[in-house]
């Protein structure tokens, strides 16, 4: 019987279940495929009514408008996947945008890279403060970031006073960042897409990334599995803050007039994008790519409603309605997924 000890290593035969694995992966991807399909259908309908929706200028405008949201959605995804939420990103963006852009006025000729580092530093500090309170203080993230939303905005207002940064004080090399294109596609959009791709890959392919999903899926089990829950959550908030800091500098380059209201309400738009993009609001599943597509969909909706000549007053109501629709779809898909899995469960004894 001692032989049973020796036969413990390598599997016998071919890797089993590779066929079914492909199927599962397909099922996994449906989440993003679904949202991409919604986006394509939406674009098709809009274009058939108003062909100018697809002209180059409008598309560029659309992509540039999406970049800041999509970038913020990356950080928010990391937080939401771990069953938390970061409501402070709009305020972080605002503070970072003003402080970084105002350095051009105080120190003319300052290297742009340094300005980005200033924004990054502000974001890091805010994110770490959030992370500490959630991970160490064990305060619910909803409460913590709701508080920091107001605190950071308050600091922003104190610093800005009645001032604003205007376009004249900003160097062209800075304000041109969102305008540069290659083959008609804004550089910035490509760069952001790459960053989001890297972020999504990190969350998918690295242990610490997967552990964020595990924490969101079952926090108690994550603790029992020996995952350093506090450390991971701290990291997620730090990353979200850092990203919001950088997004603030980009926001400044794009809008060029920065007062104390910059980024107000962005947190809700970004959370909408994340949820529309298929990230489960109670954590455990979804990807940054989906969230970015969600941001693109929200921007497209806004742009289309403009192009189609909908009265401005309708925009918010319709956007909210579409959000509800997307969440309903998400629910239907996950219910179907569950029944499909049940049916093909290789049930031994079930």
């Amino acid at each position: 019987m001692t032989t049973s000890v020796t036969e413990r290593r390598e599997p016998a035969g071919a890797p089993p279940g590779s066929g079914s694995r492909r199927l599962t992966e397909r099922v996994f991807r449906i989440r993003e495929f679904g949202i991409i399909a919604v986006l394509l259908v939406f674009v098709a309908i809009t274009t058939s009514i108003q062909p100018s929706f697809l002209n180059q200028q409008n598309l560029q405008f659309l992509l540039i408008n999406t970049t800041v949201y999509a970038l913020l959605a990356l950080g928010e995804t990391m937080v939401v996947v771990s069953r938390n939420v970061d409501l402070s990103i709009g305020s972080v963006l605002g503070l970072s945008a003003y402080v970084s852009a105002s350095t051009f006025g105080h120190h003319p000729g300052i290297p742009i890279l340094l300005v980005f580092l200033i924004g990054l530093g502000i974001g890091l500090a805010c994110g770490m403060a959030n992370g500490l309170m959630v991970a160490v203080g064990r305060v619910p993230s909803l409460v913590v970031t709701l508080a920091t939303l107001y605190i950071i905005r308050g600091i922003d207002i104190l610093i800005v006073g009645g001032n604003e940064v205007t376009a004249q004080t900003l160097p062209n090399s800075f304000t041109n960042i969102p305008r540069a294109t290659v083959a008609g596609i804004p550089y910035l959009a490509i760069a952001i897409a790459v960053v989001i791709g890297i972020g999504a890959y990190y969350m998918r392919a690295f242990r610490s990334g997967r552990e964020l999903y595990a924490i969101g899926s079952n926090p108690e089990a994550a603790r029992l599995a020996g995952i350093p829950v506090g450390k991971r959550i701290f990291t997620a908030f730090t990353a979200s803050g850092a990203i919001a800091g950088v997004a603030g500098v980009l926001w400044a380059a794009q809008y060029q007039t920065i007062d104390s209201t910059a980024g107000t309400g962005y947190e809700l738009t970004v959370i909408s994008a994340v949820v529309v993009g298929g990230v489960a609001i109670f954590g455990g599943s979804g990807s940054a790519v989906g969230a970015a597509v969600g941001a693109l969909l929200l921007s497209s909706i806004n742009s289309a409603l403009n192009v189609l000549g909908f009265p401005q007053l309708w925009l918010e109501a319709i956007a909210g309605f579409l959000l509800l629709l997307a969440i309903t779809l998400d629910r239907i898909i996950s219910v179907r997924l569950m029944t499909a899995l049940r049916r093909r469960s290789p049930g031994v004894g079930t």
Partner: protein
Amino acid sequence: MTAGDAHDGGIPSSGSAVPGGPPAPPATQASAPSAEGTPASEGTPASTATPAGSTGPASTPTPAGPAPSAQPVLALHDATKSFGAVHAVTNGTIDLYAGEAHALVGENGAGKSTMVKILAGVYQPDSGELLIDGTPVRLHNPADAQNAGIAVIYQEPTLFPDLSVAENIFMGRQPLLAGRRIDRRRMHAESAALFSRLGVKLDPGRISRGLSIADQQIVEIAKALSLDARVIVMDEPTAALSATEVARLFDVVRTLRSGGAAVLFISHRLEEVFEICQRVTVMRDGRHVLTSELAGLTADDLVRAMVGRQMEERAAGERGVAGEVVLHVEHLTREGVFTDISLDVRAGEIVALAGLVGSGRSEVARAVFGIDRYDAGRVVLRGRQLRRASPTGAMAAGIGFVPEDRRQQGLVMDMSIQQNVALASLARLRQGGLVRSAAERAFAADWAVRLNLKYGRLIDPVSRLSGGNQQKVVLAKWLGRQPALLIVDEPTRGIDIATKAEVHRLLVRLARDGVAILMISSELPEVLHIGDRILVMREGRLTAEFGHEDASEEKIMAAATGQLQEAS
């Protein structure tokens, strides 16, 4: 056999390893004068040290396995763990040897779960010594326990529902490619290899949401295997399994043993313990009672060691005279929870509902009171059928319900004593739609005197009271409505002994005054002490009924654990 039978020497504690140590009588309740301070705890550890290699002619086919090791893989000695004033474990001692399946048994509240959490690194013992391979260690968190080679399979599987089966197995320890990226292919292949070792078919790529409990446990076991765990703790793994699933699990346990792992197996089902384990440790009231080879023991011996108490004398003459039927429950069934429950409770009678935690007792009570729905059957109170799932209807018909968890469900902790007492009687204290504070106070003061409540001021928050006095407030709340039927779920849990006796006297007095009482309790002395009739539930069904003359702890435990035939 009755509790008085001497059986010293009847149990071959084949160890006799301690030099000069007498073969200790494992179950010594026969000589124990009272529930507290049984000499068992001091006398027994002598029978512990038993190298697994000497397993002897065990009834299960023992694979040759690894060579017997002289020292235990894991040894916990004299561990204590308290939560505030509650001593969960006062003498936790267990030795596990490579290649053995070791049972840990005891009544509810004996400290088994606390022991599991100590071994899992979830709790840190207040004192005591944990040795792994003879070296003292401290487990500061679950990760430490994992690294020390201890894997725990909890009663409730702890999976990540959104993640794939393979990820669940390897979370935190995924095989890596260059650049520290996860090697999914290898992770899936290794998962598949683990499953084929366990002889099950599970797709490593599927999401774990939707897996049956049995399959979830298989995933947990695969996780333990992948850890190369040398100690695998299974906390009631069979509680939710069907017979075929249990058989499969036992095959797995045998495979683990032959691979040289030590399995700590916790179960209330003694027949399973005898089927799969070689040695057993019995705990009672947080203390180690005995450790012995299972060969030669009977289920009766184990039950006696688990119970180990002298019965309290019941006060004769305090009984009420059972009158008309107040509560009549007929074929009550809630799918998957309890099945075909029929019972009567008469005026002036205390009916005790005994059974293990999870046997469906509280669920029946909740269904009767209308908190939970039921699928079939009916509940009749004083001749009138109650609407299902309507606590308001149940209250109006005259049922009072003292729930198991008084802090969460029985009381509003931040409200004052008088408000809590008056809470269920507001309709009576109301004048013109408003509750007058004076009426409320008078009402509460009256009940405080009647129940001998110890309090500062009636306007103090109820959270300031001791557990026993809080329970009195809950009782007062319902007694104020003068119920025809009072359902009490674990009425004395976490209450000190003096107040416990007071609550008992109170219940008996209520019965004498003609109230019908249905009492759920896990404490057998309590059941025997004040129950006029004792019903026993096991796995959602009523399995036995005893009058208070012919009931004994052994018989009740036997019925509750499915060992009915042995209790003669």
